[in-house]
């Protein structure tokens, strides 16, 4: 029996103000969520350039592991990026945090990479002992060596501080959409619409360009890069997805400039379903490797696709998220929602996949069996939800049936999964929800 058949998801916590509307000050809207590699910390970035970190509460001895909700509490908050102005192009550079990635622990402090459209920063979050000098040397002129006194210090308090250790700037002409750390622990890639750069965490003034899809003549531009990610185990492999619905796997060993791919994952389009919007909805908004590196999960506007890394011709599974929206594509195009970029996340054991939708709903699917679970990120919906079998054409819950009642301003774009437990963090406008089984 697959254990996922018995999974019951329940709401655990919510952080952020109770407001759900987007009009009241968009600065609080969460734009990135990420668990760290131990699962004890969650980092959330928002449109105002702030990063808020939550720490897991220590479990008391009496509670057993099963059945206790995972509780997180506020740990620290800092301003990561400020709004800037590009004088050369007369453009504003938003301070919105696009991605956060945690680095491997190397000492008592925490390190994470955060990026906005143009600059990546390496932040160190640590416990700072505030020491004050209680006594400097005597003011009078020292007459003999024994008059010289060293300042004495006392520790006043301990705070959580954050400092930027490195700033990786000026390497991207276009907006940065993703960053990904290598398994070697020292390098990472950052990708914008047309280029992918390789950096070393210790060197902030140099980076290597490894993929460049800019055509010689910009008028011939037909596709852009939407995300890039390193393989979790092999230090030389990475994938990048495009707006044309392709995923390319490249090997850094083969050449210095990885413009040619080793593998290309693309499903040929079904001519019968071709429509005016086919190209837009085939644009891949997110790709993720499973933790064991055997599967790639990709999200385009209407579906989730699971690919086996060894088979390029078609995905091993295609899941339709919200097919009831197909008739409404025209309206969604009018209100720009068709360009929403939904993320997808894979569980630590590579068996479950999660992605968001509208009306603050998000879905969890089982990769192997055909179960799914639909949840809503809202404080009202605090009852538990069980995974149920999916059948094509099955009627979904009542409020989903009628697309006219869906609130398209409430969307779950950013989600993250705990590295080995079934705890998930879901961002819905300016709130962060934690669910677990």
């Amino acid at each position, binding site marked *: 029996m697959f254990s996922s058949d018995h999974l019951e998801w329940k709401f655990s916590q919510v952080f952020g103000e109770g407001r759900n509307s987007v009009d009241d000050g968009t600065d609080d809207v969460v734009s990135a969520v990420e668990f760290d590699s131990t699962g004890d910390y969650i980092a959330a970035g928002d449109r105002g350039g702030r990063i808020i970190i939550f720490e897991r509460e220590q479990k008391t001895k009496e509670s057993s592991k099963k059945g206790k909700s995972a509780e997180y509490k506020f740990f620290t908050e800092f301003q990561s990026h400020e709004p800037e102005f590009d004088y050369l192009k007369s453009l504003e550079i938003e301070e919105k945090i696009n991605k956060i990635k945690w680095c491997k622990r190397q000492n008592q402090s925490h390190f994470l990479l955060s990026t906005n459209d143009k600059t990546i920063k390496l932040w*160190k979050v640590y416990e700072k002992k505030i020491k004050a000098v209680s006594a400097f040397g005597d003011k009078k002129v*020292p007459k003999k060596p024994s008059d010289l006194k060293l300042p004495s210090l006392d520790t006043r308090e301990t705070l959580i501080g954050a400092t930027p250790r490195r700033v990786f700037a000026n390497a991207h002409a276009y907006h940065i959409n993703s960053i990904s750390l290598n398994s070697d622990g020292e390098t990472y890639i950052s990708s914008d619409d047309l280029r992918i750069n390789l950096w070393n965490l210790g060197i902030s003034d140099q980076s290597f360009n490894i993929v460049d899809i800019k055509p010689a003549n910009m008028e011939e531009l037909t596709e852009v890069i939407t995300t890039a990610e390193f393989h979790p185990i092999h*230090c030389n492999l990475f994938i990048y997805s495009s707006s044309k619905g392709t995923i390319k796997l490249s090997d850094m060993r083969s050449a210095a400039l990885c413009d040619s791919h080793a593998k290309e994952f693309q499903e040929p389009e079904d001519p019968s379903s071709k429509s005016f919007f086919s190209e837009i909805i085939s644009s891949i908004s997110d790709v993720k490797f499973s933790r064991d590196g055997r599967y790639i999960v990709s999200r385009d506007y209407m579906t989730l696709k699971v690919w086996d890394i060894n088979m390029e011709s078609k995905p091993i599974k295609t899941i339709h998220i919200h097919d009831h929206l197909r008739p409404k594509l025209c309206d969604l195009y009018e209100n720009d929602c068709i360009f929403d970029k939904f993320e997808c996340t894979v569980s630590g054991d590579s068996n479950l996949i999660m992605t968001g939708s509208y009306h603050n709903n998000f879905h969890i699917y089982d990769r192997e069996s055909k179960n799914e679970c639909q949840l809503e990120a809202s404080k009202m919906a605090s009852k538990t939800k069980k995974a149920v079998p999916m059948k094509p054409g099955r009627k979904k819950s009542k409020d989903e049936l009628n697309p006219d009642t869906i609130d398209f301003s409430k969307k779950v774009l950013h989600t993250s999964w705990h590295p080995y437990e079934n705890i998930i963090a879901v961002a819905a406008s300016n709130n962060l929800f934690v669910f677990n089984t």
Partner: protein
Amino acid sequence: MSDVEDNLQPIAILIDELKNEDIQLRLNSVRRLGTIARALGAERTRKELIPFLAESVEDDEDEVLLALAEELGAFVEHVGGPEFASLLLQSLESLATVEETTVREKAVESICKIGEVIPQDQFQQSFVILLKRLASGDWFTSRSSSCGLFPTAYPRASEEVKRDLRSLFLQLCKDDIPMVRRAASAQLGKFAKHLQPMHVKSDLCPIFVQLANDDQDSVRLLAVDNCVAIATILSNDESATIVLPTVRTCASDKSWRVRYMVADHFCELASALGKDVTKNELVHAFVRLLKDPEAEVRTAAACKVTLFCGLLPPSQVDLVLRYILPCVKDLANDSSQHVRAALATVIMGLAPILGKEKTIEHLVELFLHLLKDEHAEVRLNIISKLDAVNKVIGIELLSQSLLPAIMELAEDKQWRVRLAIIEYIPLLASQLGVEFFDEKLGNLCLAFLGDSVHSVRSAATTNLRKLTEVFGVEWAQSHIIPKILSLYLHPNYLYRMTTLNAVTVLAPVVGNELLNNVLLPLVLRLGLDTVPNIRFNVAKTLQALLSVPLDPVSVQTRVKPALMKLCDDSDRDVVFYSRLAFQ
């Protein structure tokens, strides 16, 4: 007593500034820690200063920590001598675990420096224990740092401890974290030097092979360095069995970065592995690298062509001809300009190796081809090395085949190319002789004086002096002076300035007669020029002439009055320089 007083106040300030908010002041104080320690005396340094510094290690800026790590390395005398040296180790141990790599490395360096002077009876307790603590640290930073301590610890340890150290090192080489494996791999060569050969073979060689097959590219890269280090220690036969297979794997590794390292270290590998291996195998490996699909690898290999061929004994020249030369010909036509530029830098060096005949037969056409390359850098690299070829084929042949190309380059659009040509002219001049030079290159040299780029004009004037040294004053009088005379009437002031520069440069070599009769009047006339820049340069030139030395009569009758006039000039700069010259 007052001396001591005077000296103490600044030191008191330095001490206070150790904790000042301004990082520059803290940095300054840390760099003067020696002074502070001397003032406090050895005992107070041990009891107060060192513990105080140990606390500062926790949260200061990287620059300050780096300076601290460096200073502590030289602190042994300040704490009272080698017997107290181990007191310094506590702070340095903390510094060896910070996240900033440069600080860790400096701390390890300092720990090793101190380790060398610690008395033997304390060695085990302080140094070895410190090493073991770092090597079993929780975080990879301390484990990486510990790798740097092995080469210092091993020679002074007892047999038992040596065994412990060897197994600890092997453990670090198998660590989970790639960065620790990298640190260990980087120290493998140094460590191996201190081990007995049998231990090298039994302990280090297996791990060396394992590291060379590591999953992480960043670890495999370092295997090449280790190949050289281990091959140097073992005998040639042993190297052939143990090291050579690894070299083969690396040279055909899937990652171009590993192949690049092989190409880069190729000559060291060849020397370490010995002549037989080089002849039988490495030549072919080198050829493969020269034909590698990745341009970066070909560039690295191209840079080493001459050095490698130089390693082969003279009797093996035919090897060069048969295998390497065809590759070199292909590289001269490579699609990547970096490969061609790298080749251009070294290809001239092949001439002495091949000898006159073969150079003429094979290389000269390649030189010509590269001289006409579309990329400036390639052309530049060839020109800078022409004298190597000169020695081999002689000036006659050189001038016949290469001179036309050189003439073309003298009019190159890129000024750096023109500059390089000028710098080569004196050499050509001395070899070709006056007549030949006059015929072919004379006009060229003089034309350079009127070049549009300042650096070129400047180099041209220096060139004139060198030419005068080679050909003599009379030649200068008949050839150079007329041109200078014509230039000084040029409507553009920049060219008139060139005249002044030329005079300044030529003055020491032309002799008094010429100076007084021809050059001095020129300069004086320019003192009446309308452009102030010219006038103050006249003052500068006159000042230079005075130190030639000019004969006193001229000075009195002509130079002085001219300078006095300039001192009353309307332009401030002119007045300034004239006054300066007057002194």
